[in-house]
């Protein structure tokens, strides 16, 4: 069996899928060994499949999971006595404490701030994922309107790491954010705190 370049191009995708008959496969392989153009087509297609098949290609935006969970939490019925309800309540209390301490943070036992005018943050939830813009000295929560220099790149890290590195919380976004979250969560699961 002899195949032409056109036949190879028509079947090269099926060939990669292992979906061609043995006789055609052998003929294609014989052709490709002799034909530089068809070899290039096969190799190129193989690269395409490999590159696009990689999990790293499309990455969800920062904070995607968190925002999704928040939307789901809003869609879920509040149920008295569930472990989830208690967890939410505890998280809400943590957020309240965090929001209050952000606004009233003092310099005790803090590493040197990157900004001489900044108020260091204490007892901000250490696991909170925050964002730091390049050349910035302040950390923010996702969606903060006060993140400057976004073009220089934004890095995510835990609040605890940010504080250790000398960054300080953005009082505007963190204070407002934490208060809002706490307020909404408490409203939804008020029975837990009653």
């Amino acid at each position, binding site marked *: 069996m002899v195949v032409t370049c*056109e036949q190879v*191009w*028509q079947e*090269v*995708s*099926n060939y990669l*899928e292992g*979906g061609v008959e043995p006789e055609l496969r052998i003929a294609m392989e014989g052709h490709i060994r002799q034909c*530089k*153009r068809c*070899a*290039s*087509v096969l*190799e*190129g*297609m193989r*690269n*395409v*499949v*490999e*590159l*696009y*098949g*990689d*999990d*790293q*290609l*499309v*990455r*969800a*935006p920062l904070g*995607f*999971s968190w*925002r*999704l*969970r928040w*939307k*789901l939490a809003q*869609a*879920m*019925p509040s*149920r008295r006595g*569930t*472990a*989830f309800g208690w967890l939410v309540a505890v998280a809400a209390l943590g957020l309240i404490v965090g929001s209050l301490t952000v606004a009233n943070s003092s310099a005790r036992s803090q590493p040197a701030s990157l900004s001489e005018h900044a108020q260091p943050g204490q007892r901000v939830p250490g696991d909170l994922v925050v964002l730091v813009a390049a050349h910035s000295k302040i950390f923010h929560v996702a969606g903060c309107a006060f993140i400057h220099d976004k073009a220089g790149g934004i890095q995510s890290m835990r609040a605890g790491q940010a504080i250790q590195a000398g960054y300080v919380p953005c009082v505007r976004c963190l204070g407002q954010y934490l208060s809002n979250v706490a307020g909404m969560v408490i409203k939804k699961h008020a029975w837990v705190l009653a």
Partner: protein
Amino acid sequence: MAMLMMVEGTSSVNEPVGPLEARQRELIRRVQNGEPEKFYELIRPFERRVYAAAFSILRNPSDAEDAAQEAILKAFANLRQFRGEARFSTWLIQIAVNEARMRRRKDHADVMEPIGEREDAEGVYTPRDFADWQEVPSEALERKEVRELLLEALASLGSKYREVFVLRDVQHLSIEETSEMLGISAASVKTRLLRARLMLRDLLAPKLSGGWFSRLGFQKGSKPW
């Protein structure tokens, strides 16, 4: 609702159930029986895939996030209808694809037809004659500009090619699942997949071939073909 019902009757899964699938079934049962919070655990492994499916169709991160969220909320609201006749991941991706397609239609995003949209899918596509495209290391994807280049090339395809390519080569669905999800024949899936792969190869080879990753601004060093 019709969208959700359509998937129920497709892709019968009679294969042996592995531990991951068994865990999924257990979580589905628990959500259906009144433990909604288990839904977080159920969808966690698929969040990125749902987003990727929406992004590939809408080509905009913000729209994709909205569509992905909506799809997952719909999956949560309609989980009682899921009876395990299709894989949960396939069911979820189907909802995301439908949501994204619906939003795209609403936004008339295809007023400007991308590459290949007007061409006849049954026609012969002649791949361009390049020099060898050497193997590209998977580490290349760690480079932001390579990822952007790949997404840009994908976005430039016509939607009928992009959808098939995304479901088969990005989401790793089978030809049959892709065919059922898009409501087209398996032969059409294969034809569109061939065309999409060839077009992407033609778009990317000039930019990614020839030791590109040793250069700093490889876009500037494209081969002159």
